[in-house]
């Protein structure tokens, strides 16, 4: 690949990657249900918090499409998989 073309490709892809990363870090959030019954509180979590939750297997999607926690109280110490 010629140098100029490579430079442009790198910068474009770098920009896309940086935008995705920054959006995830600073803006992206999701509504999470704290429990499995209908009365459970729903709150918004940022993506870093979601990453922390999934790293212990703490989230799942129910039949209605709502993302909910798989545990109550203290989180598991490690991912069960």
């Amino acid at each position, binding site marked *: *690949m010629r*140098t100029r073309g*490579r*430079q442009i*490709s*790198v910068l474009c*892809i*770098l920009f*896309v*990657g*940086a*935008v*995705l*990363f*920054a*959006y*995830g*870090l600073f803006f*992206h959030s*999701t509504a999470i249900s704290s429990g499995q019954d209908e009365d459970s509180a729903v709150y918004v979590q940022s*993506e*870093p*918090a*979601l*990453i*922390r939750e*999934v*790293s*212990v*297997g703490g*989230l*799942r*999607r129910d039949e209605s*499409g709502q*993302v909910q926690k798989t545990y109550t109280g203290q989180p598991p110490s*490690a*991912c*069960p*998989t």
Partner: protein
Amino acid sequence: MVKKNNLLSKLVPWRMWVQSIFLLVWLDPLALRLHGMCCPVFHCYACPLATFACPIGVIAQFGGIHIFPFIAIGLLVVVGVLFGSLVCGWACPFGFLQDLAARAPTRKFDPPKWTGHLRYVVLIVTVLAVPYLFGEGHPLFICRICPAGALEAAVPNITQQAIAGQTIVWPNALKLTILILFLVAVFFVKRPWCRILCPLGGFFSLFNRISAFFLRLNPEKCNDCKRCHKLCEYGIQPQISPNDSACIRCLECTRCGPEALTFGSAFQHREKPSAELKPERSQANT
């Protein structure tokens, strides 16, 4: 004439030391447990000593709950487009483990080249499709079969449970089988996981031909001695395909006598442009 990247060229003989330094970063020396952030290497977040979260695990888990993993994908795209699979050769702890095992004085075999495509099958099926379509509970969910998870997380956790006298939770049979096969393969094949099945390596390899930092062949300096073929431990012919998707960018080939192969950047100032051989042109010449 293109200037050699002197720092990196000087570090090639010390690659294992660089890998050791990175290992200290990934093994959470300060017990920070920064699991809200991914690292660009293959290290299970269930490992008791993991500083960051595994990006492959995060992508798969997010796929299972139908949320786009912006941080993980953005990080991998940035690292990939800058370095390609240089991360595999210099920073990945699982790759380092395989490099250490490869030092055993056993006969080594090269897997067939086509097996490298299995990495993309693992990436598409177990990291993307299965989590999205079937969720985290499916037996082919990447974390349920990953040998890095088995070795770095299951083994220490089982040991901890045994010492504490607790009920031992064993990994599933498929994960144990893959772990055993892996533990045998590492002594007879160099980097078997990286070359055949690693989804993260497969992802980074997609960027090898377009990354900012890349291997550059100077055809004026190359005297066709094929020393780079011998220096490459992964069955690649760097003189023909310097940025092959199977390359982990260990940069051993840059130690060839004529210094025809250098690790440069697309933003490096070049006084005299040197032509980069395309694989089809070089094959026509040989």
